[in-house]
């Protein structure tokens, strides 16, 4: 107890001493570099003492700035584009500017008279306010149908503004979300890899994931993009009615996260086996995590809908193909999108 009290006392004492020192140092004279004497008769700005040393210094600094600037030009001229040292270019032009700035700082502090002046803050103008109000009121003295005119002017202005904005609607389809709902998938359409080669069911392995595209559709069409995985058929717990959607345990989901539209680019398998025994599809943007064994239901993260699932079939040549269209809408949700497949 005693030790603690001693410590507190010492601490207080030390704090007090520090604080006292700071207080004693504190009241520095404000504006010590300002010239305070009034200008001599016939002058606007007070006279300062000449400082030849500062003038030489400024001249020197300006010359150094010029050398740096010249260095920039030389560097630009001497090196080929591939060997251009970006650092040297930056140092040259940055250095030139630094020396220019220092020169100006010397000018500001040693060569230019710095006065501290006072001025009035601008006041309000009640008289002018009243005069303007009166002016506006008086100007309308011949008008008797004020409301009618204001209404008509508002209508004309509004209609004209709308008319002016109308061409903007040509930017894209108006009030039409069909583009968000169309997909290239239909029964029999093959899955291809990034080079356009049809994918064989036999090539799809467990413990990894694949990017797949719709044959013949552009690779930038987000509704064409798939993530394909293989799970042991016994593990699958797909929603009712999807019993035949995953031949041999091969599953295809939309590659576009239903949260904010990034690509599903992480497969939590086989890593994280200790903490997360189940395989999971993860979006790296906001870590929405989906369970491929359960129809890509949301396991974790901000996504509000499962990834749409594409029913698959294996054709006679062993190629993967769609057996129909997605179970839901592809991509981020919008007002009115169906939360669950109907």
């Amino acid at each position, binding site marked *: 107890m005693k030790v603690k009290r001693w410590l507190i006392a010492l601490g207080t004492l030390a704090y007090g001493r520090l604080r006292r020192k700071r*207080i004693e140092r504190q009241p520095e004279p*404000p*504006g010590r570099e300002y010239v305070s004497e009034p200008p001599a008769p016939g002058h606007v*700005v007070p006279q300062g003492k000449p400082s030849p040393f500062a003038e030489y210094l400024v001249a020197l600094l300006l010359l150094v700035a010029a050398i740096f600037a010249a260095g920039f030009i030389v560097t630009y001229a001497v090196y080929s*584009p591939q060997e251009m040292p*970006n650092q040297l270019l*930056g*140092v040259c*032009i*940055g250095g*030139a*500017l*630094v020396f*220019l*700035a*220092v020169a*100006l*700082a010397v000018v500001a502090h040693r060569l*230019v*008279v*710095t*006065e*501290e*002046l*006072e*001025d*009035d*803050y601008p006041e309000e103008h009640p008289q002018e306010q009243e005069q303007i109000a009166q002016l506006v009121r008086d100007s309308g003295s011949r008008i008797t149908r004020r409301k009618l005119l204001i209404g008509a002017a508002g209508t004309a202005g509004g209609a004209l503004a709308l008319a002016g904005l109308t061409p903007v609607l040509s*930017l*894209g389809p*108006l*009030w039409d*979300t069909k583009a*968000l709902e*169309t997909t290239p998938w239909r029964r029999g359409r093959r899955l291809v890899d990034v080079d356009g080669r049809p994918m064989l069911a036999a090539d799809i392995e467990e413990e990894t994931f694949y*990017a797949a595209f719709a044959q013949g559709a552009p*690779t930038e*069409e987000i*509704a064409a*993009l798939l993530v394909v995985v293989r799970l042991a058929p016994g593990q699958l717990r797909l929603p009712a009615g999807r019993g035949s959607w995953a031949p041999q345990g091969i599953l295809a989901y939309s590659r576009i996260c239903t*949260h904010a*539209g*990034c*690509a599903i680019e992480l497969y939590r398998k086989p890593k994280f086996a200790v*903490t997360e025994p189940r395989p999971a599809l993860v979006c*790296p*943007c*906001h*870590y*929405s995590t989906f369970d491929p064994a359960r129809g890509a239901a949301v396991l974790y*993260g901000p996504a509000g809908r499962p990834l749409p699932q594409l029913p698959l079939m294996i054709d006679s040549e062993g190629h993967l193909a769609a057996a129909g269209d997605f179970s839901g809408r592809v*991509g*981020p*949700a*919008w*007002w*009115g*999108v169906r*939360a*669950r497949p109907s």
Partner: protein
Amino acid sequence: MSDRVKDPVRFIDERTAAAPLLKKSLRYLFPDHWSFLLGEIALYAFVMLILTGVYLALFFDPSLAKTVYHGPYAPLHGQEMSEAYRSVVEISLTYKAGLLIRQTHHWAADVFIASIALHLMRVFFTGAFRKPRELTWLVGLTLLFVSLLEGYLGYSLVDDLLSGIGLAIGYGVLLSIPIVGGPLGVLLFGSAFPGKHLFESRMYIAHVFLIPALLATLIVIHLALVTARHHTQFRRDKRHTDKRIVGIPAFPAQAPRSLALMLIVAAVLFLLGGLVQINPIWQWGPFEPWLATNGAQPDWYLGWLIGALRLIPSFDVVIGHQTIVPNPFWGGAAFPLFVLAVLAAFPWVERVLTRDRATHNVLDRPREAPRRTAFGLAFLTWVFLIFAFGSADRLYVLFGVSYETLLTVFRIAIWVVPALLYLAVRRLCTELQRSDRLEHGRHNAEREAAEEEATMTARRQPVI
């Protein structure tokens, strides 16, 4: 008889009658305090953005047409990419000094928005937004939020992998806006994401013309409003009042100082552009909608939105089977709009709460307004913690704390920490005020004692 100083002045005045205005402007007073430079830094960063941006526009090709890369950067050889991305790789690696200008442009954008944010804090915590400067405050806030959009469009134009991911998220947020989101997304992009090729030129005209013109107009209005009402000032001595301003004149004293600051800003940006690599787009590769990458982070000024998108619990507002409000709306749109609304309304809210309708030209020290300072710090901390969570995946890599744990911790901390901070800061401010009063009293007493002693000595003197 010619006079080299007066002749040009006379020439100008005879043709514009501007001599009185010019004289007044030259003697405009600037209060001398370092914190007033933050806004100026933003202004000069904007100048740098225009200069470097014009240079970049001479080489950038805003086209999504496909091409195959055959430039000097071997890892991209033979890769299919858009003309836009190829032209930025070329600016970076083929044109002399192109990389310097591009990196300086990017750094200038980051510094521009950072200095606006710091300037906003200075204005907030000193009460500079109070009457008669509420309009200046609103224009400044608009400037900040338009700048965020401008920066976002700027790096979205490049069409590298990171910028494409950012654009996808922006599209998701756009779609999530209630009622109009879906149709608006289709209208702006021309189709579903990634949209028609025209979308790139739409972003381009917005980034290089529409928004810069808007920003420049807002800056002019902001500065006009500042000068119309003059600068605020701190109370250093009895001369500084709400009626009288004390400062150094624009000419000759302030001019070289301000010019030096402009050159220093330009110098720092060029040095950063030369020495510190930023967004090496050739490493990310071209964007494809089917690609994404782990550990992607936006520019710092959008980090708070990523944090909010990640923090928000998983729910869509659903009625029956119809989604009404998709999840990204809360973090990506409602959150920044809420922050904007709170800041925009603050001058009026404070007026109502404090019943203070007076004109204020003298600034508060933060301690003099305990509730404002406490609220400001708490609000700022709330936003900052959400911002910090935006890099939770990086925190996981750095500290090994699992993402799930971080999520839980942050979901609690963003409410608890600001609340505690509010109470602590309010207390601290009132304590500081009390110690100020004590010190003031002690100072007065000491002075009185000294004066008394002086008179005593003076009285004693004749005796000797």
